[in-house]
């Protein structure tokens, strides 16, 4: 839902970042307002996950220029955990397995950290059990997954559902979902998409990274961005995704080449 007067939640300006000595993000700009759903598409290796990890504060990536403001405040100076407590959520493309740490305890500690960030009191184990059982319904997940170690031995689809469960518990203001639809069967896709739609509201925003129109059939984006070689090459409405589905990414090369030739854009 686009409302020009809605507050800006995330403002990314000319963001550049590298991993080790290799520049990956080469000037990303993006403005996200409350209520909006953005989709980011683009070829493998174009920098989508890097953008999401830089936003979440992964230590392997170094920001070399530009700025990110979250609700008007500098995001890049914050530790990852403070970003999360302030309401930024990253659904991982590859959720991490953590042997020996129970999923239930992990979810409880995370939920309480976020609640502290919102100025709410911590939930005790009983109150948390009630909450988690209610939120399990959103993703139609078996409570048995709570007893297991975080993501350990979960199938690809189960891991993605666990990500959405975390999102449902943490109630983020800005959710960045990196290929949450990959590896899902048709039913799971519907469940996950339903969960995202259920959690999307006028006060929060979602940034969906995806390769597939089938997700955007169920979650209608307000904006679609195409990433290439570390920048956003084009932005349009939901029809841009349909166009990509039809034309593929060949045109990207021509546009990138043109971009490289334009002296104003170089550097």
């Amino acid at each position: 839902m686009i409302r020009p007067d809605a507050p800006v939640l995330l403002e990314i300006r000319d963001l550049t970042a590298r991993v080790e000595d290799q520049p990956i993000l080469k000037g990303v700009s993006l403005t996200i307002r409350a209520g909006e759903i953005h989709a980011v598409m683009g070829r493998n290796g174009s920098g989508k996950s890097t953008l999401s990890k830089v936003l979440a504060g992964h230590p392997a990536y170094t920001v070399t220029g530009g700025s990110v403001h979250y609700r008007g405040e500098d995001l890049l100076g914050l530790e990852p955990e403070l970003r999360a407590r302030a309401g930024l959520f990253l659904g991982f493309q590859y959720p991490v397995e953590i042997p020996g740490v129970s999923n239930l305890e992990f979810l409880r500690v995370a939920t309480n950290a976020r609640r502290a960030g919102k100025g709410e009191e911590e939930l005790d184990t009983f109150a948390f059990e009630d909450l988690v059982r209610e939120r399990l319904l959103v993703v139609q997940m078996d409570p048995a997954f709570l007893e297991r170690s975080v993501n350990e031995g979960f199938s690809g689809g189960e891991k993605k559902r666990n990500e959405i469960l975390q999102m449902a518990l943490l109630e983020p203001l800005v959710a960045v979902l990196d290929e949450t639809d990959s590896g899902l069967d048709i039913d799971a896709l519907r469940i996950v998409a339903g969960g995202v739609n259920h959690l999307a509201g006028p006060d929060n925003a979602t940034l969906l990274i995806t390769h597939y129109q089938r997700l955007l059939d169920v979650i209608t984006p307000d904006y679609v961005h195409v990433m290439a070689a570390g920048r956003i090459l084009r932005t349009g409405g939901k029809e841009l995704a349909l166009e990509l589905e039809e034309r593929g990414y060949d045109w990207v090369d021509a546009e990138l080449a043109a971009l490289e030739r334009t002296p104003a854009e170089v550097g």
Partner: protein
Amino acid sequence: MVAASLSTPTAAAGAAPGGWIAALLAEASGGADALAASRERAAQALAQTPLPSRRDEAWRFTDLAPLTALTPTLLSPAAAAQPPVADGSLRLVLDGQSDPLAGITLPAGLEPISGDELDATLGQVLAATGSAALWPVLLNGATARAVLALRVRGTVATTLELVSDAGDGEGILPLRLLLVLEPGASVEVLQVHRSSGANLTSLVLEARLGEGAELRHGLLAPGAETGCLLATVAVEQATGSRYSGVSAHGGWALGRLEPRLVQREGAAHSALKALQLADGRQISDTHSQMVFAGPDGRLEQLHKAVADGQGRSVFNGAVQVPRLAQRTDAAQLSRNLLLSDRARIDTKPELEIVADDVRCAHGATVSRLQQDELFYLQSRGIAADQAARLLLRGFCEEVLQALPAAAVAWQPLVSLLGKEGR
């Protein structure tokens, strides 16, 4: 009886180690208990055995200094506070002198072994596992005044808890245990050995498993900054028997565990799962030995260690598969977590495989906390130090959760990790 010059720990440490042993033996000699004769023999052997030094292969990384810094006297521990006994458990408190069975009604299937039978049996498993001449075993033999010896028949539903707390007194607490499992017998045993002072808990357990018998054995030993633990667990297995040993020790100035297993005719199942922790300037050591003296035996061994501060972790896992032990299937994995640049981890498999038709897998990893795991937790609002704590606990839990259920009352994580475990 103790020479005045040996009565303070610093004096003892500075004195010739031979003097330390002599002082201890003077203290331990005499008595008319059931162990008196074997004690004299062990004392003579000990007096003639030099103290293990860093020049001995088995003690290359393990300095005995924290031990010889102790007062060479026998310890009489005071009664210590304990958690409530869990349903389905029988707790026997070991203090090295009084009879732990006094006033106790043993559950069906358990009975004490005594008299000639005890004399005939004690030491046999030590001999069968090549443990009789080990220095910690001699030290125990030369000082122990009491033995808890039990026979197990049939399936015992009660978990046997054998516990000691050396407390904050000075000296040596020798504990001697013997378990004889008749063919087909099955029992669960949890040992808990604690200390809070400058003392040594010296433990020797002999367990003989008859055909098809099963022993589920846990050993939890959270120590003290100045305390020492020397524990030898000798297990002799007949065919078809199953031994599962789960151990966790840490927090000792010097903590050393030596599980020594022999499958007398092969065709038995042995499982060892261990966790050891070394922080501060502590030494945590495990020297395990598995001997397959017949074909078709199995071993599953997982050894985990955490070293922090300037702690030192040592693991040596010997597995012997002689020619007659065909079709042995043994797997040994050593997983280590290095939490500080000044900590040290030495881990070494020692496989002697002569038989040709065998499967022996082994592996060792040493790693730090994984950045991706830390980041994942942080990205969910969990602060870096709490995330590190969760990962550390996760690493330990894999072993601790395999302890007998009765261990829960002893709060394994908290007892081993302190506030980090909460």
